[in-house]
């Protein structure tokens, strides 16, 4: 039993650490980046708005796996600059996830932004709030609140998407599960992996439900 734990479960838990690390890096960087993208799309400086929109469309319109493969294996093959674009696999994966998820979050925040009634801006204006105060005190809090359920969904998808690291050979949870399956000739590791993913998504679900209740404004 102890043996079983040491040979199978323990490496998988270590792999899960990688998964969790990637999750936090991706969430913590792509949410602010997505927010900046949202602002860029709304920008009055048209070239910036268009570029951002094209970026979002491309990132959302192509598979994350393709983007990961491109960053891990494609970029280093480029002539001249390729040799400077060889990243550590995990770093490359982080870049891929951040770039991809930022586009999704941008779209989510934009939805939150356009859901805000123009009466909110008008009330703020007649109360003498500056543009900055209106944005930070009135608009953003409401935007984040509206976006919260979609952000929760996206985060749960992100946990499961980390399994794509398997394809670029970063040793995460699924990688150790597969190794154990091959070595021990048992499918149990698959189930253990499933339980670990499930635990992670459940924790996230509970956390976001709590956030939603906390900011219900009732």
């Amino acid at each position: 039993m102890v043996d079983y734990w040491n040979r199978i479960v323990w490496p998988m838990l270590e792999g899960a650490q990688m998964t969790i690390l990637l999750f936090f890096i991706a969430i913590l960087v792509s949410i602010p980046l997505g927010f900046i993208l949202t602002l860029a799309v709304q920008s009055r400086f048209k070239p910036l708005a268009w570029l951002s929109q094209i970026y979002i469309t491309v990132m959302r319109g192509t598979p994350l796996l393709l983007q990961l493969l491109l960053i891990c294996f494609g970029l280093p093959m480029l002539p001249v600059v390729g040799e400077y674009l060889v990243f550590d696999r995990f770093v490359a994966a982080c870049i891929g996830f951040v770039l991809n998820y930022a586009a999704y979050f941008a779209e989510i925040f934009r939805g939150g932004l356009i859901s805000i009634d123009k009466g909110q801006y008008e009330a703020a204006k007649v109360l003498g709030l500056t543009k900055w105060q209106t944005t930070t005190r009135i608009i953003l809090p409401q935007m984040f609140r509206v976006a919260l359920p979609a952000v929760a969904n996206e985060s749960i998808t992100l946990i499961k998407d980390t399994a794509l690291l398997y394809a670029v050979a970063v040793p995460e949870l699924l990688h150790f599960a597969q190794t154990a399956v091959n070595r021990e000739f048992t499918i149990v590791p698959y189930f253990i992996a499933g339980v670990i993913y499930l635990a992670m998504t459940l924790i996230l679900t509970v956390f976001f439900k709590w956030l939603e209740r906390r900011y219900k404004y009732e």
Partner: protein
Amino acid sequence: MALIEVTNLKKSFGNQEVLKSISFSVDKKEVIAMIGPSGSGKSTLLRSLIHLEEIDNGSICIDGDFLVKDGQYANQADIRKITGKMGMVFQHFNLFPHLTVKENLILAPKLRKSESMEEIEKRCMDLLRKVGLSDKANAYPSNLSGGQKQRVAIARSLMLNPQILLFDEPTSALDPELTGEVLKVMKDLAEEHMTMIVVTHEMGFAREVANRVIFMDGGEIIESNEPEQFFQHPQHERTKAFLHKNWK
């Protein structure tokens, strides 16, 4: 000197002329009821006064300062100062849903930083008492009835001590049984001699509370008179037709 002086105000949306050379003035302590058919430009006129719409030509002078003179707007800082003398109450309340009643009231004066927090909180509670909502200070707007929301909105606009209050159909979004409580608050304000312009369909309010009724149609002021005269002896055909349809 008039508190509000509007001369030859013109405003178009695209090629639709919505306000056609409007001139009128409002004295201190006057309560104006502004009535007229849908699309006649009442809201646009009211919103122009507080710079929610930019006019194309003409002048708006508030308490001696030109918000816009012959189509030329004052600079940003002056616009803020001038519009700061007015408060506005909207048809749909426009309370901030993520803030409690108290926070809704306190936000603007707090950000303005010209008074201590104690003074602001005291005025907040005084005003909530005045509109009969002391017990709702910590409620969120979503838990209030329409009439309560509108009373909060009125209290909120009073937090900045405006000289003029503008109302755009303050009771139109309310169930009929809730209009009374809002009209009562407005009536109290009129009795305290707050200068007010009220766009309304409430003929009863226009008649009892206003000092003057302005009737608009097709982007023009057709008639302006004290309520008795206005309702008993309307001068213009269009006024008569409107009153015939909308009153009694």
